[in-house]
């Protein structure tokens, strides 16, 4: 079970990022909980300066754009 946080101010890109992670996880049969976090202090803690950012099990994996499918697959399968 992976805990995935999508950090962002609630813009369209953040929503799309969360949706595509959930969709791909379902297709791959990986169990995940995806939450969207808009708290600026959390972003600061992770050193995130561009959103959307993706934190998986407490570790920052990506920031600044909607991640590509191959990246998401890599995170989920690792």
């Amino acid at each position, binding site marked *: 079970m992976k805990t995935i946080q999508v950090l*962002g101010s609630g813009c369209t*890109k953040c929503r799309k990022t969360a949706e595509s992670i959930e969709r791909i996880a379902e297709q791959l049969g990986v169990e995940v909980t995806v939450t969207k976090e808009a708290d600026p202090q959390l972003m600061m803690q*992770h050193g995130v300066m561009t959103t959307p950012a993706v934190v998986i099990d407490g570790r920052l994996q990506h920031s*600044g754009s909607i991640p590509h499918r191959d990246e998401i697959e890599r995170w989920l399968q690792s």
Partner: protein
Amino acid sequence: MLEWFSRLADFLIVEQLGLSRDDRLGGALHFFVEDTSKIFVLLVVMIYLIALARASLRVERVRDYLAGRNRYLGYGLGSAFGAITPFCSCSSIPLFLGFTSAGIPIGITMSFLLTSPLINEVAIVLLAGLLGWKFTLVYVVVGMSVGMLGGLFLDSIRAERLLQAFARKAFDNASAPAAVDNIIENSGQNDSLTLSARHRFAMDELTDILSRVWKWVFIGVGVGAALHGFVPEGWIEQHLGDGQWWSVPAAVALGIPLYANATGVIPVMESLITQGLPVGTTLAFCMSTVAASFPEFILLKQVMQWRLLAILFVLLLVSFTLVGWLFNGLSGLGFL
């Protein structure tokens, strides 16, 4: 090369539809076809090329570069990076905090954030394509000056006192976080980007920007075309000409709450200028529409106290009004 778009409009409107460019509907439609076709071609080509060139420029690197710089050099650099760094306004807050927690003065951060929406590839491409390079140059110089002087002013009043408590604390305990730098190494987003990685970044940028701005092109050109065809010749010059000093602050006050981005405003500007609206008034209106919007102010509330937001609002109002008067004066004297 750009006459090609006028000829396309001639072909469609005059030859195919049989309308004359001199009557209202024909004139407005001609303007619409010429401008939309020109804008989309320019945007697609230029966004792709610019994105290709700056694929490796990331805000984290800008932060590392700005941290610990000489203060006065910092305002210029902050503003210059604001102009060239790919950056979406929805990242304003984390960027603000990232800069602040690296100990970069608030003024330099604000130089970056004020210049960023004013000067971007879309605005430059449209200005150069529709209003010519001279106007574009003036726009860039003025935009950067507003960013730099605004930053200088905010530091001179020690704006960091008016941040929200947690942001203030981050500034006081400044230390650069390294987390993002690590993932950048891992995901290959470092200096030596391969051409295919650059191409991928450029295509992402292109689809992202176009999906955000395409409707603004139609709205902006549509309003411009309507002004072009249906406002009587000379009306704007007579009623909003440079004789009326109040038209500049009125244009700015109208522009600040108006939410539009540069893509929608520039075609309207083109139409207004050809109709005789003074250059300074037009510039002031355009900058205030693009630089500030209520949604963005509400976002900034997360890191700033109301007083600082109010100061920022007045700062923008005053500086754009001064810009407008200055350029109306210069063009009145024949400099522009």
